[in-house]
């Protein structure tokens, strides 16, 4: 079984039901299934199949889903790309991942200066029909261990890392999430998280697997628009990251409205502040609130806190999801005692195959059959896990994981800068805001405007620092390492 089989099962059980709805309209399960098949066959007839990859650069939309599942249907692996990106990053991924084709739209092709090359054929999803085929061809059945998709995440070195997920990985995690959220065909959701990240992608997978409906809002810029849609469609679920809930509570009409149809909400991507959790519970007295934890390297999900437990266990991310083993271990790999801090390690069918083209990086975190998450945590007497910090220094801002190193490298390109340290500081809406501490090269100081302009030119917009602090020097250890924790 694969995600495709689960989706096909939904299509045969609920052919007329709405699978997806976006700005362009809605599509039923049977029509979506036909469109996916046609897209897959079109790619297959262009010679794209097992062992190859197809990149997708599209916002959340019906077309995205057709392309994503269609690529898998052809036997190839889908490589969804972050649409809020820089040309440099996109080129880096295309050069190292070497996809046979890139599915995108005219708008993104223009924005990122993408054209047909010898190695990559460009498929414009909004107008191209060359990849559509209804001819009779037999598509290959995927093996569970075959590569299904590669999701790029921020690497600590500043270069994105491609997380390779197999069909088995996706199927295992999808089934597990469905079981603890108790998802079924009666469920529906307004999806605001991008499908190119693992959390958004898990929403897509689980809903298509059970025959539920997804209403796509391709961004969360105007929360009131999203709320209107949730109300109109009487959706049963909602999924967000800490900043989503902060926006809902502090910058929208959310608390002024009633939500009797909302059966559950989920949060991943960072702990929920106890105050936010309490406020959320006041607005949603009957809705189940799931706090969850995961990593792209684990397809999406690793643990969840049972609804109703979050007042009793504030700040906890709960326990392992079905089919996953979690341990918190010390440097020697021994499980820590309650209250002691250690690293979370994980085992299960959802753990990735490795990083694309980076065997050394893979070997560092996949050891002895366990994924070493880099997240530091404690466990209480009842086995509930509390995340303390990340071993790596990635900043969590909004739905994004951001490498400070990438931002520092860009700032250091300026002649006026001698040293820089970028950290995440607590922020009510974003979770963390990006702050750059900059040491000027000479007495002339720093032109903050120029610095920001340089960042905007060379970084994706969500990576541009929110604040620049000029300083005479940075706090350092005796070995010269910057003590970033003093800057947070």
């Amino acid at each position, binding site marked *: 079984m694969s995600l495709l089989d689960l989706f096909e099962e939904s299509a045969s059980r609920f052919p007329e039901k709405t699978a997806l709805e976006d700005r362009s309209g809605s599509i039923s399960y049977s029509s979506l299934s036909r469109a996916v098949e046609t897209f897959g066959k079109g790619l297959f007839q262009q010679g794209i199949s097992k062992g190859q990859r197809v990149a997708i650069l599209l916002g959340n939309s019906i077309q995205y889903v057709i392309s994503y599942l269609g690529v898998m249907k052809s036997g190839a692996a889908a490589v969804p790309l972050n649409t*809020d990106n820089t040309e440099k990053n996109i080129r880096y991924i295309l050069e190292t991942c070497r996809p046979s084709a890139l599915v995108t739209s005219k708008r993104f092709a223009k924005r990122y200066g993408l054209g047909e090359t010898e190695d990559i054929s460009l498929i414009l999803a909004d107008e191209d029909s060359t990849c559509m085929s209804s001819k009779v061809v037999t598509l290959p059945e995927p093996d569970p261990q075959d590569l299904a998709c590669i999701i790029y995440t921020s690497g600590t070195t500043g270069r994105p890392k491609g997380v390779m997920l197999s069909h088995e990985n996706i199927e295992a995690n999808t089934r597990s999430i469905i079981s603890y959220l108790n998802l079924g065909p009666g469920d529906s959701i307004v999806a605001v998280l991008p499908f190119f990240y693992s959390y958004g992608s898990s929403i897509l997978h689980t809903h298509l697997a059970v025959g539920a409906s997804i209403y796509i809002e391709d961004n969360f*810029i105007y929360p009131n628009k999203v709320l209107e849609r949730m109300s109109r469609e009487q959706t049963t679920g909602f999924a967000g990251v800490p900043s989503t809930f902060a926006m809902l509570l502090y910058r929208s009409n959310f608390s002024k409205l009633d939500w009797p149809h909302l059966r559950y909400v989920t949060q991943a991507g960072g702990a929920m502040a106890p105050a936010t959790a309490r406020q959320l519970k006041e607005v949603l007295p009957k809705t189940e609130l799931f706090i969850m934890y995961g990593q792209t390297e684990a397809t999406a999900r690793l643990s969840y806190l049972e609804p109703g437990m979050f007042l009793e266990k504030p700040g906890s991310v709960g326990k392992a999801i079905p089919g996953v083993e979690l341990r918190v271990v010390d440097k020697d790999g021994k499980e820590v005692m309650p209250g002691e801090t250690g690293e979370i390690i994980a085992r299960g069918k959802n753990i990735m195959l490795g990083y694309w083209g980076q065997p050394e990086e893979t070997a560092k975190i996949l050891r002895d059959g366990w994924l070493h998450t880099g997240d530091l945590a404690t466990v209480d007497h009842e086995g509930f896990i509390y995340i303390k910090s990340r071993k790596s220094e990635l900043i969590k801002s909004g739905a994004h994981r951001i490498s400070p190193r990438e931002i520092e490298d860009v700032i250091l390109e300026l002649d006026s800068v001698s040293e820089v340290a970028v950290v995440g500081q607590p922020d009510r809406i974003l979770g963390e805001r990006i702050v750059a501490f900059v040491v000027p090269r000479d007495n002339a100081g720093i032109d903050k405007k120029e610095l920001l302009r340089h960042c*905007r030119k060379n970084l994706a917009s969500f990576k541009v620092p929110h604040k620049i602090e000029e300083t005479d020097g940075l706090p350092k250890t005796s070995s010269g390492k910057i003590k970033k924790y003093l800057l947070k």
Partner: protein
Amino acid sequence: MSQVREQIREFIVENFLMGEDSDDLKDDSSFLEEGIIDSTGVLELVEFLEDTFEIKVDDEELIPENLDSINNLCTYLEKKRK
């Protein structure tokens, strides 16, 4: 009002278009459709409106009809400052 329009344009160009006054930014260009502003950007825009024009943007007013183009912003400000 033309001064207000200029101030808004300058803010958008300086903060979201890397300081380059792109020809693509028409007075009725949708920030959303053109990918000019993301959700953090909207918060920055609100902060700018509140500071510059000494108004309070209410939660109900955070909708594209008010904020999604230079024209919409001008109309919204005009209403707000009456």
